[in-house]
């Protein structure tokens, strides 16, 4: 088959699955937050199969509101796209795109399976994988800053400033926390990281990786603007933050990008610490069935981790801005450096299997 | 003036007294209630009414009274500081029947007085039914008011109340509820002394005393409804107003009765542009506190469904401005030959309207319709036109009134008169029949209700009743009195003076009457009897002018 066609199929597949998961993770978030608060959450809209003459519909999954993402999307599309008169139109439009695009682009370098029919289940297996991922992911902050600035309004502006400061601070910790992994694996290529984990244990199993793992998880909460670090969109303080002036589909882009980022962060966590598509007792290579199984394992791990993200959001209250900065610079940064040192000592001591 | 309308000439001699420590000067012979009113001390009372004979039976006005003490030598006893020593009477006195004397000391707020008021209220309420939810007096009931101010908060009476007849038909217009009656006898005294129709009295004894008509008599006189006004409770009610509306919803507008030339001062009670009743307003120079039943009930035409709310051009409904635009040139052309134009004004119109009408009618033949029936030597005047005097002052009416109506009829018959302008009169019933009206080339009628004349008219401009406009009337004695707008129909109708102002403007007269005040000022400047007057000076009580 034409390799370009294969790439196209992979791109369409990845983006499709990603957006699908995004839509349903929103539903999951609403249901789980309701359950945590002893409510029911959305429980009305199923997927309509047939509409009877009297206007009622035969639908499936109404109890679980499986149709909710569909009508939410329809609502976002058909809502009036209101653009306030005082905004900077070009950057106002650019903002949501710049947020959404990097969230999707990151997936180019993430291995979401082993191989299927001899085709590696990664779109671009670049040798600087993790660097590319971080480089692209950090572009997302431009969207937030632009959106906040172009809105030409106080609260979004404050949200944008908070976003940029927070993302820059935590990117440092994020980067430092993964250095120990590559010291052990010896390659920046993400397929290589997964392969290493299939041959040895998952990286999270080694005690000296626990500290970097915790820092990585906490930093990725901050990177994705999720609670308890959702300062840029603190609705109580900033009336919604950087997306206050947005409506309709442009707001939905910001909204979806947050979830896309969350899934991306989960996927990276899975690849870096939790063995990627690997699961013990599942063969590392085999036919189509094994290839499909690997993809499913990967997606299951990503979804489970995304649920943890939601779980944390509805448990932990938002931190104060000075606490956020203090935590990033005064706690995580030294600890991440310490993690590098400890891993180095572990390698020198010969405890690491590489 | 009839003898039952004369007021006692105030005695020049004044006496000094003290009420609750406030010094008061009252004419000799005045009672304590009147003296208290002069300095704002209120003494509650039911049976006493300033225009009626004193009977002193309700005991509500009990007060403490004292005077300068006199020694055995009949010399004033003095305090050490030289002031006269005051001796208080051992028992309370009724305020209504105790004349104020020199040096009298009156106390109306002592514990003894309060206790007495409280006890009297309790007696009144023993047999009074709890009818307030259905009683028309509720809201203007003296029993309710005093109960709040002087009574107890709860009843101690546990026994069965005395039951008396309810819904007693006393006369064609008055309904009696004997249970509510507190036996003050105001109605009896009014009918005996003022209306000179002694038809009411008390029968039976003790708790079973009831008000009743004399055998073979009914409370049917033309002044019967004044007893309803006088009744301090809901025992006597007006059948016309019964269960129509609660009084607290009603807006009170000062007005005068336009049913005859007496011009009794009234209050129009209306809610949301509907008139519910008319009651007399005190004016000692005109009607004291009374009015006749016929005038009181003469308000139904104000909210009649048949009222004209749009202008009519050849029978077709039209907006006022459009009709005026069509009428203007025709009227101007017709008025060019004054000899061919006749005018029928109205003795029911206000002075201002008559003034404008007289300007319009200058040079043409004009008259008013006379209305003379029997007077009753009290409040009903033989002249039923409320402003016949005004019509004469402005020269709208001929001398005698109505003498030129035949001239107008003959003129139309002979073809000399081609244009007729009529204000508020149905000339069809006054000798100018439909056949004559049909001969006219232009018939303009200003009226508030459809008549045979409006049917024949080429142009009908919708006017209003006296309850919807500002203006003044001159009564038979030459007293100028104002009316105020109480209601509005909300259609295309206009105050009649506005219509005549517009007609004058359309016919090329200088437009100098912007509003009613400017119009009155113009009238005062040009018509001698009104010289020096203004609407403010006339106020609510009216002003006497010289008619001659």
């Amino acid at each position, binding site marked *: 088959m034409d390799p370009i066609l294969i790439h196209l199929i992979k791109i369409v597949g990845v983006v499709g699955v990603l957006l699908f998961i995004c839509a349903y993770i929103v539903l999951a978030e609403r249901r789980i937050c309701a*359950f*945590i608060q*002893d409510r029911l959450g959305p429980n009305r809209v199923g997927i309509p199969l047939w509409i009877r003459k009297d206007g009622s519909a035969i639908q499936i999954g109404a109890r679980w509101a499986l149709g909710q993402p569909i009508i939410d999307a329809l609502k976002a599309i058909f809502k009036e796209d209101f653009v306030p008169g005082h905004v900077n139109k070009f950057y106002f439009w650019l903002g949501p795109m710049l947020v959404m695009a990097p969230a999707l682009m990151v997936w180019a370098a993430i291995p979401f399976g082993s191989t299927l029919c001899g085709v590696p289940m990664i779109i671009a297996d670049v040798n600087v994988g993790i660097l590319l991922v971080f480089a692209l992911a950090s572009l997302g902050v431009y969207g937030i800053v632009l959106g906040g600035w172009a809105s030409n309004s106080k609260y979004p502006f404050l949200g944008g400033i908070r976003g940029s400061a927070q993302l820059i601070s935590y990117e440092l910790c994020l980067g430092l926390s993964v250095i120990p992994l590559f010291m052990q694996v010896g390659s920046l290529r993400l397929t290589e990281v997964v392969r290493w984990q299939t041959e040895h244990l998952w990286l999270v199993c080694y005690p000296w990786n626990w500290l970097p793992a915790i820092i990585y998880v906490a930093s990725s909460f901050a990177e994705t603007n999720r609670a308890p670090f959702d300062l840029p969109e603190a609705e109580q303080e900033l009336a919604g933050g950087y997306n206050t002036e947005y409506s309709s589909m442009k707001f939905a882009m910001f909204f979806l990008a947050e979830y896309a980022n969350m899934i991306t962060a989960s996927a990276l966590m899975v690849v870096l610490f939790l063995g990627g598509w690997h699961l013990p007792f599942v063969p590392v290579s085999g036919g189509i069935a094994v290839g499909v199984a690997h993809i499913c394992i990967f997606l299951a791990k990503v979804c489970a981790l995304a649920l943890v993200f939601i*779980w944390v959001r509805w448990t932990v209250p938002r931190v104060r801005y000075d606490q956020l900065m203090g935590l990033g610079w005064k706690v995580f940064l030294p600890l991440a450096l310490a993690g590098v040192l400890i891993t180095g000592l572990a390698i020198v001591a010969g405890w690491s299997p590489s | 003036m009839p003898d039952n309308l004369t007021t006692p000439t105030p005695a020049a001699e004044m006496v000094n007294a003290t009420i609750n420590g406030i010094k008061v000067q009252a004419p000799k012979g005045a009672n304590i209630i009147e003296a208290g009113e002069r300095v704002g001390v209120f003494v509650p009372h039911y049976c006493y009414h300033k225009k009626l004979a004193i009977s002193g039976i309700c005991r509500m006005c009990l007060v403490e009274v004292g005077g300068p003490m006199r020694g055995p030598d009949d010399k004033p006893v003095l305090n050490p500081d030289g002031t006269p020593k005051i001796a208080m009477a051992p028992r309370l006195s009724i305020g209504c029947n105790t004349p104020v004397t020199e040096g009298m000391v009156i106390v109306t707020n002592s514990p003894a007085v309060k206790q007495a008021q409280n006890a009297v209220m309790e007696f009144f309420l023993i047999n009074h039914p709890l009818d*307030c939810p259905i009683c028309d007096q509720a809201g203007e009931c003296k029993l309710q008011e005093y109960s709040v101010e002087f009574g107890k908060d709860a009843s101690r009476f546990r026994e069965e109340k005395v*039951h008396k007849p309810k819904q007693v038909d006393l006369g064609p217009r008055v309904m009696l509820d004997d249970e509510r009656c507190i036996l003050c006898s105001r109605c009896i005294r009014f009918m005996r002394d003022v209306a000179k129709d002694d038809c009411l009295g008390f029968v039976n004894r003790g708790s079973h005393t009831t008000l009743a008509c004399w055998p073979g008599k009914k409370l049917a006189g033309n002044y019967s409804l004044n007893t309803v006004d006088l009744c301090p409770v809901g025992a006597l009610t007006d059948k016309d107003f019964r269960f129509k509306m609660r009084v*607290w919803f009603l807006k009170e507008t000062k007005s005068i009765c336009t049913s005859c030339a007496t011009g009794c001062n009234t209050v129009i009670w209306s809610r949301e542009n509907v008139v519910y009743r008319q009651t007399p307003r005190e004016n000692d120079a005109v009607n004291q506190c009374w009015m006749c039943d016929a005038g009181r009930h003469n308000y139904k035409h104000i909210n009649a469904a048949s009222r004209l709310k749009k202008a009519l051009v050849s029978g077709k409904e039209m907006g006022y401005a459009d009709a005026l635009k069509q009428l203007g040139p025709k009227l101007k052309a017709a008025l060019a030959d004054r000899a061919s134009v006749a005018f029928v004004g109205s003795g029911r119109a206000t002075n201002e309207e008559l003034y404008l009408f007289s300007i319009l009618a200058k040079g043409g033949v004009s008259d008013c319709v006379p209305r003379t029936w029997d007077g009753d030597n009290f409040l009903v005047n033989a002249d039923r036109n409320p402003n016949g005097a005004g019509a004469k002052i402005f020269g709208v009416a001929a001398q005698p009134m109505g003498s030129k109506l035949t001239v107008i009829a003959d003129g139309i018959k002979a073809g000399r008169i081609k244009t007729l302008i009529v204000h508020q009169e149905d000339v069809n019933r006054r000798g100018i029949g439909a056949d004559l009206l049909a001969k006219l080339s232009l018939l303009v009628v200003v009226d508030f209700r459809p008549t045979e004349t409006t049917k024949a008219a080429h142009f009908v401009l919708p006017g209003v009743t006296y309850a919807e406009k500002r203006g003044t009337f001159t009564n038979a004695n030459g007293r100028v009195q104002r009316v105020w707008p109480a209601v509005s129909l909300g259609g295309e109708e206009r105050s009649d003076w506005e219509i005549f102002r517009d007609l004058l403007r359309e016919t090329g007269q200088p437009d100098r009457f912007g509003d009613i005040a400017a119009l009155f000022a113009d009238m005062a400047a040009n018509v001698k009897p009104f010289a020096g007057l203004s609407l403010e000076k006339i106020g609510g009580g009216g002003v006497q002018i010289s008619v001659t």
Partner: protein
Amino acid sequence: MKIERKPLTLWERLYLPAIISGMMLTFSHLFRKKVTLRYPEEKPEMPPGYRGQPVLVKDDEGRVKCVACQLCEFVCPPRAIRIKPMAYPENAKYKKVEKTPEEFEIDMIRCIFCGYCEEVCPERAIFLRGPYSVTGLSRKDMVFNKEKLLELGGTLPDPIKKWRKK
């Protein structure tokens, strides 16, 4: 008053144990009984004395208790009530009551459910009771007339029978 703020211990300063115990708590809530009422299918049970829609009641003899005193019309803050009183016709069963409403209208768009009408009523004829879902498709629908208000109100036995003694 000054409240001493205790410095956090090292264990507390780690935060992680607190976060984990919090997450355990929220996790346990996932499986608790839910308080949500699925409204159109499940209707809430209104407590006694619930101040819902104003209604008119009849006594156990079937007499309209309202005597059209118009106090509710007077006291109504949004002026939602309109009453046209009338006298009972001759030979009517309750002629002795004398007065009754010919028309009694409550504009449910205007009504603010304050309950003043119930409080002021001297005849205990109007009550704010059960019905809480007041709907209509037009403004005219929302003006409830006497018949509708009586139907909603039903019968309320009257222990006093004030008018029987008249």
